[in-house]
């Protein structure tokens, strides 16, 4: 009988202190690159524009947009950690913008007779990983944040909505 009580008690304890456990995706995100504010970051922005042309072709565009989406997600994550909410918010939106461009690249490749099976699989893995990271981040952030820059008007950042939107974009890619 004691055994049943023990199980019941432990179940109660687990329910009392809920803890989200995320599915671990095998997709690997890149290291954080240069952060806003550094000179290298400005150079990176120029490089980003140049690479857009270098990565021509359907698969090239797939790779380019996915790598940029990954990069900005990691950047946003780092900036959120340092409570640089405005910059992080903007990076998250950039990551979404690039992610939205991946599907059209796959469709174009398919239209051009290319086998896109592995690209679709990769996009799915990436989207899963992104969602996993976004859910982790969302837990530790406020719903909204009032950003008050010096000598400028303040701005309310709806972080909750931004996260919902980012997750939805990625769920559409699944």
């Amino acid at each position, binding site marked *: 009988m004691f055994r049943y009580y023990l199980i019941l008690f432990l179940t109660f304890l687990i329910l009392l202190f809920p803890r989200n456990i995320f599915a671990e995706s095998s997709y690997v995100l890149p290291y954080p690159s240069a952060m806003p504010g550094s000179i290298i970051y400005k150079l990176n922005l120029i490089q980003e524009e140049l690479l857009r042309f*270098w*990565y*021509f*072709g359907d*698969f*090239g565009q797939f*790779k380019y947009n996915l790598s940029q989406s990954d990069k900005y997600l990691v950047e946003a994550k780092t900036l959120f950690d340092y409570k640089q909410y405005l910059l992080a918010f903007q990076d998250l939106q950039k990551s979404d913008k690039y992610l939205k461009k991946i599907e059209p690249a796959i469709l174009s490749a398919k239209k*051009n007779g290319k*086998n896109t099976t592995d690209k679709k699989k990769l996009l799915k893995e990436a989207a899963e990983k992104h969602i996993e990271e976004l859910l982790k981040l969302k837990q530790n952030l406020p719903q909204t944040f009032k950003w008050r820059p010096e000598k400028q008007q303040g701005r309310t950042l709806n972080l909750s909505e931004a996260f919902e939107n980012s997750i939805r974009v990625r769920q559409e890619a699944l």
Partner: protein
Amino acid sequence: MNIVVSIFILTLVLFSIFTYSFVDINLSYLSNLYTGLYLNQRILLSIIYSSLIVVLFSCSYFLLTNLNRLKLNLNKLILFIVLATIFAYPAALTFDIFNYITTAKVTFLYQENPYVVYPIEMLNDPYLAFTRAANKTALYGPFWILLTVIPYFLGLGSFILTLFSFKVFIALFYIGTIYLMRRIDKTAAFFLALNPLVIIESLISSHNDIVMILFALLSLYLFFQKNYMSSFLSILGSVFIKPATLFLTPVYLGLLKDRIFGKKINQEKAFKYSAILMFIIFVLSPIREELYPWYAIWFITFTSFLRKNKFLQSLVLVFSLGLMLRYIPYMATGNYFGLTPIIRNILMITPVLIFLIYTWLKRYSLLR
């Protein structure tokens, strides 16, 4: 003379036929010619290969050491050499031609950047079955990729036609190099034209090194003609095929210095330093990958102009023989590892050592 030339050409024809023993099992386009000999008769093929190579180098040695006595017609010689080898199967010794074709396909058919997209990403592409290094992005410079648009489209979408249009395209650069050399020094042209390594690697295996070399040589020629802008563009073209010719920079700096100070350009000195620099980069090439026999074309082209140095010409020919022997261990065992690398180096060095000992003994009259 005619007999030796005939034996040389006939051996090249036999070598071309011999290359078909290596038709890849996965090359469905030539499945009718597949024999499986390269898998089942390795030792026999190695013996045949060694014999053909020895005959070719012996003929070449005889013809080159008797150039003054023999009145060889370069035009006829080139015509017969090209005809004897142009229909050979190009992937008997290496598979680079498949890589050239697949990279061209990724660029011009799939319209993807070959420096970003791997050929292997083109799932279900039939060329992947026999293309090596399909998991690597483009291995060659952008100018080479740009040039390949010509043979690729001349292939009209047919693999066999594309394969042979690549062969003909590269053969044109071999012919171009010989004729350019002839404009500079007629006799020197024979040293390149008759070197079996140059013939096999440029006309049979169709390596693009001869393309890189033609642009480098053209650049030097244009410099001698005081056409500096064209010379610069030509060496730029060469570097953007393979960056090896970047090592010729000191030669150009020396030539520019002489020109600025009003000194007479010493062509032989320019070729001598080009040969030395190209030999240095050849020797250093294992740092990047390994010592491939066709890299020897880089310095053989320039040593050919130093024809007055008979010892050097013989040494280059003997070393070329040693380099061609490097193919034997893999051909015989089908294994790149184990003892293969050691035996390969021993085979490469042995003819050179024998030649040096022979020369030393001869010099000190020990053989008289």
